[in-house]
């Protein structure tokens, strides 16, 4: 395809051509960044979590008398285990993604420093089965450790702890974590087991270092343990939540009892993120539609203006295919100009966002990705007007306007 005639024709329509280039450039810049943001947020929504998310339901009890915890919690747990379909139940202080962070900074030496906030979980006997923790190394807590431990002033009185695989690697790189000492606030605990990564209580605010930084302690029943974790087959969860809330409410008449499946907890935690994703998707779709309108509008006008020239070209031997290709090539050239400017703009916007917002660098492949998308959209938009141009009969040339 000869492109020199296209250039000379574009030179005669400099302003409309520049407008198409500008529109494609802006669309490309916004699209790259928006898709990047969508991708990041989708990755957050799907952060893996080393507990049995599909089988867990959580019953939260507030407003009970903390002094009676030692007798109430075992009684409540026995009742929960009696609900048909429940395979395990245990009391815990808090859950991953429950947004009420209890955080401590742990170190490997008595006077070390750390910048990572670790989520601290206290679980009662049977907590590992109820949560579905995956043991990678070492062992879970034994019966004496559960019985002899508790919490005072938000600190564990135990001597042992479980850490996550990420923390084991971060705190003791290249070494075996088992048997090592964890230090915080002048106390220490021996690591007896390593479990696969469990999410923090509020991972989006704890940063990449704290996302999978969790420590588990054993504890006897305590007033701080306001959550009962109930495990069952996934299909039984909704019924079990209902029945469990009834059971616990009946046993604790003065308390406020709420229950939800863990799947629901996760979707609640990410509710704002997913609405942002939808908003971004919507804006991208509408923006691309507007870009298509613009290209269709300008090209149609263009075709209308050049009906006579097209007729002459057809009369002197150009086939329909030639005319079609002419407009397609023209659009391709304009899109190329647009995406080159657009990629620079996209990169610039990304740099700006990195400075002013919590945004990371956009991987390079988003830029050619956006370029290809806009090339395709340009071709799609030009197809209609180009086909209409190709349908112009040669006889037009002989008519006087």
């Amino acid at each position, binding site marked *: 395809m000869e492109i020199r005639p296209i250039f000379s024709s574009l030179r005669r329509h400099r302003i409309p051509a520049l407008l198409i280039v500008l529109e494609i450039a802006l669309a490309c810049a916004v699209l790259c960044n928006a898709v990047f943001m969508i991708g990041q947020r989708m990755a957050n929504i799907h952060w893996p979590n080393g507990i049995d998310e599909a089988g867990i339901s959580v019953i939260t009890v*507030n407003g009970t008398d903390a002094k009676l915890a030692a007798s109430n919690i075992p009684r409540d747990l026995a009742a929960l285990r009696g609900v048909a379909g429940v395979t395990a139940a245990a009391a815990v202080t808090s859950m991953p993604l429950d947004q009420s962070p209890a955080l401590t900074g742990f170190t490997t030496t008595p006077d070390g420093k750390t910048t990572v906030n670790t989520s601290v979980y206290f679980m009662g006997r049977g907590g590992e089965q109820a949560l579905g923790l995956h043991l990678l190394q070492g062992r879970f807590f034994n019966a004496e450790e559960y019985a002899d431990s508790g919490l*005072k*002033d938000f600190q564990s009185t135990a001597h042992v702890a479980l850490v996550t695989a990420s923390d084991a690697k971060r705190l003791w790189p290249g070494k075996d974590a088992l048997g090592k000492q964890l230090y915080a*606030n002048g106390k220490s605990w021996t690591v007896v087991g390593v479990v696969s990564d469990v999410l923090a209580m509020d991972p989006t605010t704890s940063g990449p270092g704290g996302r999978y930084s969790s420590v588990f302690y054993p504890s006897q029943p305590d007033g701080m343990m306001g959550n009962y974790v109930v495990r069952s087959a996934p299909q039984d969860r909704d019924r079990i939540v209902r029945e469990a809330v009834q059971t616990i409410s009946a046993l604790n008449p003065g308390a406020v009892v709420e229950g939800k499946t863990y799947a629901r907890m996760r979707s609640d935690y990410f509710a704002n993120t997913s609405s942002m994703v939808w908003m971004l998707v919507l804006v991208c779709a509408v923006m691309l539609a*507007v870009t298509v*309108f613009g290209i269709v509008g300008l090209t149609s006008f263009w075709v209308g203006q050049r009906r006579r020239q097209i007729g002459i070209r057809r009369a002197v031997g150009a086939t329909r295919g030639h005319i079609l290709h002419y407009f397609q090539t023209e659009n391709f050239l304009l899109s190329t100009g647009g995406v080159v400017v657009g990629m620079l703009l996209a990169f610039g916007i990304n740099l700006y966002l990195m400075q002013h*917002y919590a945004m990371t660098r956009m991987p390079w492949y988003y830029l050619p990705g956006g370029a290809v998308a806009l090339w395709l959209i340009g071709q799609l938009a030009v197809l209609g007007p180009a086909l209409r141009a190709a349908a112009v009969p040669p006889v037009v040339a002989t008519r006087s306007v």
Partner: protein
Amino acid sequence: MMFGYYLDLALRSLRRNKVLTTLMVLALALGIGACITTLTVLKLLSGDPIPQKSAQLFYPQLDPYPANQPFSRSGKRLPFLMSYVDAMNLIHAHKAERQAAMAMSQVKLMPPSGEGKPFYAQGVLATADFFPMFDAPFQYGSGWTAADDDSRAQVVVIAGYLNDKLFGGANSVGKMIRIEDHDFRIIGVLRAWAPQPRFYALHLGGRSYGKGDAVFLPLQGARADGLMPSAMMGYGKSIDVDHLESAEAIWLGLWVQLPNAAAVSTYRSFLGNYAREQVSLGRFRKSHTALSGLMEWMRSEHVVPEDVRLQAGLAFGFLLICVVNTVGLLLAKCLRRSREIGVRRALGASRGAIFAQFMVEAAIVGLAGGVLGLCFAELGLLGIRHQPAQYASLAHLDLSMFLFTFVVALAASLVAGLLPAWRACVVAPAPQLKDA
């Protein structure tokens, strides 16, 4: 009237090419709708929570943290809450016109009749100046006094909506209400009062937006009954939760009212002297202090969610694309009419007249885009009200945003119309006529 003639010409021209006109109006309306939706939310979230008072409200900060365990790594940020000892020292110094310390607490409420289930509500534990300082309006009764603070009075002020729920809106002053299994006597009922965002709850663990807090209790009286603050941070070995008042922990927000610049600078030096005195007493390691105005404090603490600002930026990018699109389509329409322009010029129309004619056409597109954009914005806000965010229920278009929509629409369309109108008015009459 020439304007009437231009209007007629513009309407004729817009009617002649319905598809192109629809595309222009639709694109502009989408851009405007997206912008107005996000700006309404941004304005809602970043607005002044207490316009008549915000210039007089200040938030002092001190730093009781030990040297080897600074509050922030960079050392630039001061602890955003205060220990009980410091808050009380500052309050009892009476160096500001008004001063109040506060904490938030989730409290269990028992319906008074004894029937119905207990429920949780957001409570504020505060000292006496809270109500006059924040201009909280009373429907019945009043707040408590500094003497009530000192005597640990078991009294409570409740929100209007809670009064409606529990007492059917009747005057409940003097009645008892059970909070966290203790009885409190109601001494005041507020009118609807919910500063947006809830600046005083920042870092204290309360909600930032949405309907106001339910109960307000005297700090010392409520603490004597064992009510716990929602947020506390320790700077010692551990937080002694049984003795929070003397613990090495920060858990209170302190606000002061300073009527003028002189009062601010006096308070600033008082604060500095206090910190230096604490250093010499060995309680503090660092003597740096801060005193921020309300709006400055909200800005520095990034109260507006980042996603909301990103959305507004994205919407403006989108509007820009829509404007470029409108420029292109208007230009296409205008170039197609070169002959018509040539004829009008040859018959004596000035360049200014042609320019005005095309700008009127652009303005009509803009107004139509504004009306349709308003519909899109209402749809967008409807969508936002169905989102789970705290501020969702507040997302409504107010009068100023309603008018602003048309300002944006007209400005966008006139900017978009400039280039085509200029191209139109430089069309030379002769060649166009010859060509025909």
